């Protein structure tokens, strides 16, 4: 074979080998880069989610700070709506008497327990009420208590059959509830 031709073929072959080697190198780099990118991408997604939660948290706190004057006003308005301690007992007694009569119930006992809440200018008043009546009357009474303009939080209601001395449909109800009186002007 002609020497010049041999040299030419070798140059072509060398070029092809270099091209294929470059292909292999690029493929290897591409595979490696693809693998190493997966974790940082996942981390970025997780970080972005955390940031979003942090942003919501901060925005909420910002809004609360902005609304603080309104919140203070709301608290004061609610506390002002509570009964004053000086007249609260008579008002609550009269109201519960009235509500029970309207519901067709008779209050058997009504117990008060006062607890001064230091630093709040409030007195917590626990009420124990025992009444007798039918189931329908008791539901009516509970409904009236719930709709009263004075707020009462009913903690527990024990509804039991009246016993041998009462009428057949009579139930005995013991209600434990609480309200608050304001102790300062």
């Amino acid at each position, binding site marked *: 074979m002609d020497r010049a031709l041999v040299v030419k073929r070798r140059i072509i072959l060398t070029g092809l080998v270099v091209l294929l080697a470059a292909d292999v190198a*690029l493929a290897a780099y*591409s595979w490696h*880069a*693809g693998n190493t990118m997966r974790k940082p991408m996942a981390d970025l997604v997780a970080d972005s989610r955390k940031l979003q939660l942090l942003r919501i948290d901060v925005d909420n706190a910002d809004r609360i700070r902005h609304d603080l004057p309104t919140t203070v006003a709301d608290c004061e308005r609610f506390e002002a709506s509570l009964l004053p301690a000086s007249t609260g007992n008579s008002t609550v007694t009269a109201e519960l008497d009235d509500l029970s009569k309207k519901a067709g119930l008779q209050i058997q006992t009504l117990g008060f327990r006062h607890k001064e809440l230091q630093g709040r200018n409030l007195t917590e008043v626990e009420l124990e009420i025992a009444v007798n009546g039918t189931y329908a009357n008791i539901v009516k009474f509970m409904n009236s208590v719930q709709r009263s303009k004075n707020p009462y939080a009913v903690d527990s209601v*024990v509804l039991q059959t009246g016993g041998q001395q009462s009428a057949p449909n009579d139930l005995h109800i013991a209600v434990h509830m609480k309200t608050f009186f304001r102790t300062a002007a």
Partner: protein
Amino acid sequence: MNVRLNLATKPLESQRKFYVSAGLVAVLGGVLFLVLGWHVYSELRAREDLRRKEQDNDRVAAQLTARRTELDTFFARQENARLKDRVAFLNGFIDESSFDWTRMFMDLEKTLPVGVHVVSIQPKREKGRMFVRLTVGAVSDEAKIKFLRAMENSPAFRDVTLLSVRGPSGSANSTDQAVMELNAVYSRT
């Protein structure tokens, strides 16, 4: 007169097959090179984008953390901590006082089948959930089963746990064949 003479001392060898093969490999290798090159270029750009996004995230995180620290300091002030406590206290009371007892009684009435009556109800709020401890009397075994099924299928009550079933005692109500005691969570709160 012209005479055509072949003066070659070696026979003619065709290089066509070599050139075609080499050309084919070169074209395929070249195309592959371009594709892989583009892919690597894209990877590098994506890496750059990623780095930029990470920097953005770091910057935003630093800003938000600074804002949060400032807000934490603000809310940690004595007067604000006191207000937070006051609001939580009043909200707790408002939440308790706004519980709809009438609706709970109505739901209970809907759930009770014929032949079952309530002996006692003890609703109690714990950790924001309303637990109801019920004692009911049933005039027959059929009514007893109907009541338990009704409670289990009621949308108003869940986590129904039967605590005890007693036979006729004769003390409270002589018509009762069974007295059941159960706990449930009232869902409509």
